[in-house]
């Protein structure tokens, strides 16, 4: 009898002992989600309600939600154009460092040449150089050749800034491909471009995917580079710049700010949920070798 109740109690006691674990973890998760949830809910609330009571009141009847905030920022608040600008900036700025970096990574991994290691060490050193060190000379250069405020200028800048990490990540991956694979292709008479395009690039897709997501998110979410090289022109401003201008001019215009902020989050969130695995891999590769 006593034995029986003991055997019932032990799992129960263990489960009870685990309650603090669940409480702490769930509290942390709720705390982490609440700020974003508040933003999302608020962006659908009418102007007068956002300003007078908390966003959690939205769940009390009568419900009152609206799409007006989104309609306003997309049509009159410049967010529609900024969304297109963000895309126009981010897509080429993601593809260019991948192509150029992959070529260099292939050479560093599978070709022998003098100063190979020294050059590669320099690229490792460039990984952590603060971009602030480059802004004044590059801005002057852009002013001289008329690239300030143009997409071409910011593409080149993002490409160069993304290259050290692209080369580092892709070289680590490409160098781990089996030697026999490359050598047998060479014996079959395949040239380096053929090996690179037909063999190395297709097998590197997982690494390229991680890199692409990482670089895309970085460029999409960047504020500083866009502020400096694009100047204040609304024609070319990406969403980050437009929103930070809205913060300064609207101050407490929460109905517009929340909608604008959420529009800027939609694409990264889709990418994040659809490709979380690759994103996490990119983050891991950025700090520890796999």
């Amino acid at each position, binding site marked *: 009898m006593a034995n029986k109740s003991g055997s019932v109690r032990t799992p129960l006691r263990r489960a009870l002992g685990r309650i603090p674990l669940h409480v702490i973890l769930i509290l942390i998760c709720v705390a982490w989600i609440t700020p974003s949830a*508040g933003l999302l809910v608020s962006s659908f609330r009418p102007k007068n309600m956002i300003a007078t009571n908390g966003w959690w009141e939205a769940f009390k009847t009568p419900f009152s939600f609206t799409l007006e905030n989104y309609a306003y920022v997309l049509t009159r608040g410049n967010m529609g154009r900024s969304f297109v600008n963000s895309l126009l900036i981010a897509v*080429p700025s993601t593809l260019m460092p991948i192509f150029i970096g992959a070529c260099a990574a292939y050479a560093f991994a599978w070709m022998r040449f003098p100063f190979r290691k020294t050059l590669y060490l320099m690229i490792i050193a460039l990984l952590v150089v603060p971009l602030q060190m480059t802004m004044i000379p590059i801005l002057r250069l852009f002013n001289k050749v008329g690239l300030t405020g143009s*997409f071409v200028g910011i593409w080149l800048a993002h490409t160069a800034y993304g290259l050290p990490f692209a080369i580092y990540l892709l070289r680590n991956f490409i160098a781990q491909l089996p030697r026999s694979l490359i050598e047998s292709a060479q014996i079959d008479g395949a040239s*380096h*471009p053929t090996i690179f395009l037909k063999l190395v690039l297709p097998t590197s897709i997982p690494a390229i995917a991680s890199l692409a997501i990482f670089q895309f998110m970085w460029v999409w979410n960047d504020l500083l580079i866009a502020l400096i090289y694009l100047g204040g022109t609304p024609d070319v401003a990406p969403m980050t710049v437009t929103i930070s201008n809205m913060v300064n001019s609207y101050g407490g215009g929460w109905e517009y700010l929340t909608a604008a902020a959420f529009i800027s989050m939609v694409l990264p969130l889709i990418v994040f949920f659809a490709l979380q695995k690759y994103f996490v891999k990119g983050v891991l590769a950025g700090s520890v070798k796999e």
Partner: protein
Amino acid sequence: MAWGKYKARQKNMHTNYIMVAIAALAVIPIFLWAYLMITEQIATHTSRKTAGVLRPWFWILPAVSLLIIFLVYPVINTIVLSFMDARSEHFVGLRNYKYIFSDSGMLVVLRNNLLWLVFFTAACLVLGLLIAVLSDRVKYESVAKTCIFLPMAISFVAAGVIWRFMYEFRPAGTPQIGTVNAILTAIFPNFEPKAWLFNRSTNNAALIVVGIWMWTGFAMVILSAGLKGISEDILEAARIDGASEIAIFFRIILPLMMPTITVVATTLIINVLKVFDIVYVMTNGNLGTEVIANRMYKEMFNFRNYGRASAIATLLLVAIIPVMIMNLKRFNTEESNG
């Protein structure tokens, strides 16, 4: 009429941009493909030996030239400019550096960066490790981790908006629309609502919290990967020997994870030294919240003092050099081991 023309011009510009982008998307791969083919042709038309010497340089040339133009040359140039005056016309010796370390405004900036460095890094590490360890023991691990990691996908600008809304202040007695003040007044009836971002005693902490909210997910992901790397046998053996979970954590898990923790800490430090967006969007560095990167931006655009701006940037570089050396050493040992 003029308005119509303006609209037409605007529309025209917009289509131009889209054309440029499509052109870039098509041209870049074609251009690179052509580059590879042409250089290979050049290489094969020379002797075998020359080809072997030339080919690698053809392959790294696009990357290396971009890196030299956009990173190497500017870094050297900025160091030179940091010893020159506001308009880069006269050599002024160490004057800009003296200014950095003596101006009262700059001292506040340095103090703030130190606050960020200590509290942001420590909090991200502790919380990241805590969440990694806790979520390792539950069935909903991936959901929990997604919650924490989510802010990594958001821009600092959007996070700035989110948290300005969280910190929104309404005078006591009126309904609070900011979550932070609402929760605190609900729990503690005597709590006086605070303007977190405007109060000099709380604004730096309020900004650092935003940084922690965004970066804890990063620390957690990497620490969690490190945690999974610890063999279950060691932990099981300790449990059989009767070690408590807390003892296991401090005696076994923590020492084994030290290398991972170091890596995470250095990455956090590199990023926190350069923190810019959060401060720019939330307070623009007013009321004693300015940090190095914001000050550099102001010296560059508002005060047009390129000498001081360069000196501030160089200070950032100097702060990061130890990390750079660590990375190089780590790479060297990895290469000789692998």
